[in-house]
Structure formats: structure tokens, C-alpha cells
């Protein structure tokens, strides 16, 4: 086995390996997605961030404009301070809303930015004033139960005067999660 043939085959082998690695990185992984480009940092305070994680996308009108950099806890105001990095190409007005949405029904959470109408734009280090917390499933359920309970209370009070309507089945006060609004 002479040396030139071995060199050729080993060269082909290593080249195939590098090509496979590049293919994996570009096509399969998400190495090319938006890691290029300068960004500026902005903070936002939320009462509940739900399951938002660092590196979660920041989207505006459904398009990714940045990433969540870090999430910290402010022990004075008991709020979560989320630092997000927004691509320098996009400028947002000072009265932008920052909300936490869920991608899909039970998917990952991301930060959604809705532009306001202010003329001044956010700069590096600014704070987003208007925020809306993440939807926590348990709170929604308890809200729903509470509203259902108060509805049946009102119905009970009004049905004593209007006897024509059928009394709501006794199961109305118990949990009827089948017709939850989500």
C-alpha cells in the first residue's frame, strides 16, 4: 500500500467528515439563525415569567428580532427582570408592550413585542415600561372557576323571581372544565 494512495484516501475521509459536520451544523442544527449582527440590550420587568428561558426568541409581528439574554429576580420589587437583546436593525418606540406568549398551545414561551406610537426609540440599557405576564394555567383555571361560581350565584338569585327557566343542574358549581375557554 503506497503512501500516495493512503494519503489520498485519508484526505477524502477527513474531507467527508468535515462536510458531514458542516451539513449537520447548517442544515440540521440552528447555527446560522440570527447569531450574526449587533444587538442592543433592553430590560423589562414581569410579575410572572412562566417558563421563559434564556435564549428564548423575542418576536415582533411573529418575526424573530432578538433573544432573551438573562432572567434575574429583583428582591426589592419581587419582580422578574428579563434582559433581552434586540437586533440593531430594528428600532422600537419607548412605549412598546412586552408580553409573554406561548408558541402553539403547550409549546415554548417567547417574548412578543408590540410597538406603540411614541416617537422616541428604545436605546441600549432602556427599560420597557408596559409588560404583560405569562399565562399561568392554574390561575386561568381558578379565574374560570371563580367566574363560573359567581355566575351561578347570580342565576340562583334571579331564578327565584323567574320560575319559568329551568334550574341549572347541581353540577354547575362543580368543575366543568370541559368548556374551558382554551
Amino acid at each position: 500500500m503506497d503512501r500516495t494512495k493512503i494519503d489520498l484516501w485519508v484526505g477524502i475521509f477527513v474531507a467527508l467528515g468535515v462536510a458531514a459536520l458542516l451539513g449537520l451544523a447548517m442544515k440540521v442544527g440552528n447555527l446560522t439563525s440570527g447569531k450574526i449582527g449587533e444587538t442592543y440590550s433592553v430590560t423589562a420587568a414581569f410579575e410572572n415569567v412562566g417558563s421563559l428561558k434564556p435564549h428564548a426568541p423575542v418576536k415582533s409581528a411573529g418575526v424573530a428580532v432578538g433573544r432573551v439574554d438573562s432572567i434575574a429576580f429583583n428582591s426589592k420589587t419581587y419582580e422578574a427582570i428579563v434582559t433581552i437583546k434586540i437586533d440593531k436593525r430594528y428600532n422600537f418606540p419607548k412605549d412598546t408592550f412586552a408580553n409573554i406568549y406561548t408558541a402553539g398551545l403547550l409549546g415554548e414561551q417567547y417574548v412578543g413585542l408590540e410597538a406603540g406610537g411614541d416617537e422616541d426609540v428604545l436605546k441600549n440599557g432602556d427599560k420597557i415600561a408596559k409588560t404583560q405576564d405569562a399565562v399561568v394555567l392554574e390561575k386561568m383555571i381558578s379565574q374560570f372557576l371563580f367566574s363560573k361560581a359567581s355566575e351561578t350565584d347570580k342565576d340562583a338569585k334571579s331564578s327565584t323571581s323567574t320560575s319559568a327557566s329551568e334550574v341549572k343542574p347541581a353540577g354547575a358549581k362543580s368543575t366543568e372544565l370541559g368548556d374551558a375557554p382554551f
Partner: protein
Amino acid sequence: MTKSNPLVSIIKTLQGIGHRMVERIWRLGAGARLFFLTIVYSGESFKRFHLTMREIYSTGVMSLLIIIVSAFFVGMVLALQGYNTLQKYGSSEAIGVLVSLSLVRELGPVVTALLFAGRAGTAITAEIGLMKTTEQLSAMEMMAVNPIARVVAPRFWAGVISMPILATLFSMVGILGGYIVAVPLIGVDEGAFWSQMQASVDFQSDIVNGIIKSLVFGVACTMIALFEGFDAPPTAEGVSRATTRTVVISSLTVLGLDFVLTSFMLVI
């Protein structure tokens, strides 16, 4: 004495078990010593790189055929089985995620290591065992050529260099095989296949972890093959038993290390 017969046989059994355990620990120590010496005498395998190149040819390039064909079939089977189950829950578009994550995280490194141990590991063990049997290693020592530097270290570095390349090739070809079954044959949407895959596979935590795993498996499999060959009894039967030991011990080690590495990586 008929009374002490059962007691004697029990004692003999326990002695046998103890002896085998102690011998295994001796061998583990000898293997660690060979590993240490291989690292110490590695200079020559890089200064005279053609030695290592020759070994990369024998271990890496010659394993290409089995790796690529196996990867292709593994990818195709993953796509078929995955689609079969996913379409019951209406999530057949997640087939790309299933195939790519299974391959990149687990199947790529582990199956490549098992195939590598079977093909390249046994070749290394048989070669070195035969060198020992035909007294080539002793002849080298007599000529003041360090057999570890000349024979063992180049094969070690060749194995360590080849394994990640083979594992990455396995993952890529497997994903291609899965693509061929899922998109043209079954009819899953091509855009959904790739875009969901790109959204779920993270370069740093999945692909790089897979490469780290394959490096560790490469070190383990190559070292086990080298040690079994170096330590084989210098007879025909000894060498053949050494090759089977290589495959068995490499496979068990790879699977055990896989569990340990995965638990580290999932925590971190």
C-alpha cells in the same frame, strides 16, 4: 472425609470468584499503565505522521463502507417506525425531529462505536496479538525501537481521530436516509421536515455533545483493543479469544459510558 466435601467445594468456588476478580483488577491496572505509556510515547506518532496516517486508513477509511450502509438503513428504519407511531397522534410532521435527535444525540455515537469496535477494534487486536505471537514486538525491543511508540500509539491516535468523523458521517447519512423515506416515500412535507428539525436541534447541546461522546468512545474502544492485543497469550487460541474479548468488553464499556455521559449532559 465425606463431611467436609460440601464445605470444601463452597470454599473452592469462593476462592475461584475471588481469584477472577483480583485478576480482572490486575488487568485493569495493566491496561491503565499501557494507556499512560501510550500517551507518554505519543510524540513519534505526530512527528512521523505517516505512521498515524496508515493507521487512520486501516481503522477509519476501511470502516467507511459498514458505517455508511448501516447509517442509511438505521435512518430509514427510524423514519418508518417513527412515522408509524407519530401519525396516530397527528404529529407526523415531527418525524424530522425524531430522526435527527435520536441519531445526533445517541445512535450516531453509540452505534458507530459498536461497529467500530467490531470492525476496527478486532483488526487492531488481531494485528498486535499476531505481532506478539510472531515475536515481532520482542524483536523491536531488541533493536531499541520502542514498540509502544512505534506500534501502539499511532493506532491509538488513529482511532481517536477516526471515531468522531465516523460518528458525524453516521448521523448525517442516517438523517439523509430518514429524509428519503419520509419525504418522497411517505409524503411528509419537506419544509416541515427540515424546519422543525432546525428548530429542535441545538448545535451546542446536541451536535457538540454527540462529538464529545464519540471522542470518549473512541478512546475507550481503541484502548481496549490495543490492550487486549498487547496482553494476549502468544498462541493462536489466545489471539482469537482476545479478539472476542475486545468486542464484548468494548461494547459493554461503550454502553455503560453512554449512560454516564448522557446523565452528565442532561444535567448540565
